[in-house]
């Protein structure tokens, strides 16, 4: 059943069934003509599609922006579609903010629930993340003295 667009003859991608009174009218249009007729909204918008659009809309000139906590670059995020650590929201704020607004109906600020635990404050979270990244590097180069001191610092920060 390969329909052609009723308006321009290109392959139709939008198939509509409209009911006027007792009459059923089927319409077949291409994306562009459907958009012009004002019935473009696609019935199926899978979430992964949304995400791909989200990532593709990003500006590739800013691809080398790097998170100093987890080391992820913006280019890596565009490829993996997943962020590396909570601090990426800060590190890539310039790129993410406008896109968040598109995905979330124009919103860019959370107004919902807030965690109760006082320990959840953001500065502390980032400090611990940073210390953990340093710890990983210290272990990699077998600097165990530094690793031990970093471990103490992490414990201290977490319980402060």
């Amino acid at each position, binding site marked *: 059943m390969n329909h052609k667009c009723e308006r321009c003859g290109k392959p139709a991608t939008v198939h*509509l069934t409209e009911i006027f009174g007792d009459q059923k009218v089927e319409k077949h249009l291409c994306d562009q003509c459907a958009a012009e007729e004002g019935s473009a909204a696609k*019935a199926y918008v899978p979430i*992964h599609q949304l995400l791909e659009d989200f990532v593709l809309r990003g500006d590739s000139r800013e691809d080398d922006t790097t998170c100093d906590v987890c080391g*992820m670059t913006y280019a890596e995020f565009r490829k993996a579609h997943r962020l590396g650590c909570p601090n990426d929201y800060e590190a890539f704020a310039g790129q993410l903010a406008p896109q968040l607004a598109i995905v979330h109906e124009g919103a860019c600020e959370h107004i919902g629930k807030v965690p109760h635990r006082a320990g959840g404050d953001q500065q502390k979270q980032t400090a611990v993340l940073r210390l953990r990244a340093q710890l990983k590097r210290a272990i990699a180069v077998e600097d165990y003295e530094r690793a031990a001191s970093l471990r103490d610092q992490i414990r201290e920060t977490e319980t402060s």
Partner: protein
Amino acid sequence: MTLTELSRHTGQWLRSGGPAGEVVISSRVRLARNLAGLPFLGRSTRSHQRELEQRLWLEILDSGVLGDGGFYVDVDAAGQLDRELLVERHLISRHHADGESPRGVAISADETIAIMVNEEDHIRIQVLRSGQQLDAAAAQINAIDDKLDERLDFAFHGKYGYLTACPTNVGTGLRVSVMLHLPGLTLSGAIDKALRAAGDMHLAIRGLHGEGTAATGDFFQLSNQTTLGKTEQQIIEEFTDEVLPSFIDYELSARDGLSRRQQALIDDRIFRALATLKAARVMSTREMMSLLSMVRLGVNIGKIGDVSLDTVNDLFLLAQPAHLQKMLGRTMTSDERAAARADYIHKRLGVA
């Protein structure tokens, strides 16, 4: 509780049709949470993932959120068939089943609560109820989140809210999904229009098993796409006050119109479906879904009196590939399954 025991019956939550059950099959809410001070899963090593999994699993069981009889399944160690079984029961996602890292799921005895550990986020809490019970599901998931919040520091940002590995979940981390049975809209040809309206309301539409699956047998899953800039309450209310009443109304008027104007045609579809289920010797999952869809409609509008809604719900679940193999205790090719499925359907529909 073992997965084999689980596989013999429908989850308790599905056994009795819930409110507005003739259209709304189930209500589901999900919260995404990550621990503060740790990288997201994609940036953490396998040994850290294992460490985190064991910690979270103990914290979840210890917190008591699952109630009596809750249990944990190590999905990484589970066999292929068990993973498929959990997907068919909506207890884990396809992504979780196919993953490769240390991961698992904590499940309550009645299967209304499932908490995935190390899926895309560190924690994904799900509450599932039959019919239209979004308010109850939302209250329950909020209480579970509060209890976990007492013992875990969640990654949270003053401006962006709960931080998630994928920015499409950031903010509340809340995804509401309702599974709808819309045979009236499909038969009357009005389904495209209804789904376009759902698209305009910023909803995502998917098939029976979530992301990337096509709708089979007139079942459609609607979910919110927006997680940032609205309160949890607002997101729930959009469903309970707008989306669901409209869809229930569209569907019921479509059924009404069909049974008034095209009664013979509808009866024919319903009874042919039932007869095929009773007579067929091989039956694919896909064909079964579309036939059961018509039978479910027949039961709901009172055309079929000798099949209960519970039997229909049971068949939807228990005659799926993994359940069938688990029930018969062996792995089967798809041809063998099709024959076994037809057999099982006969048994449940009382064919001598």
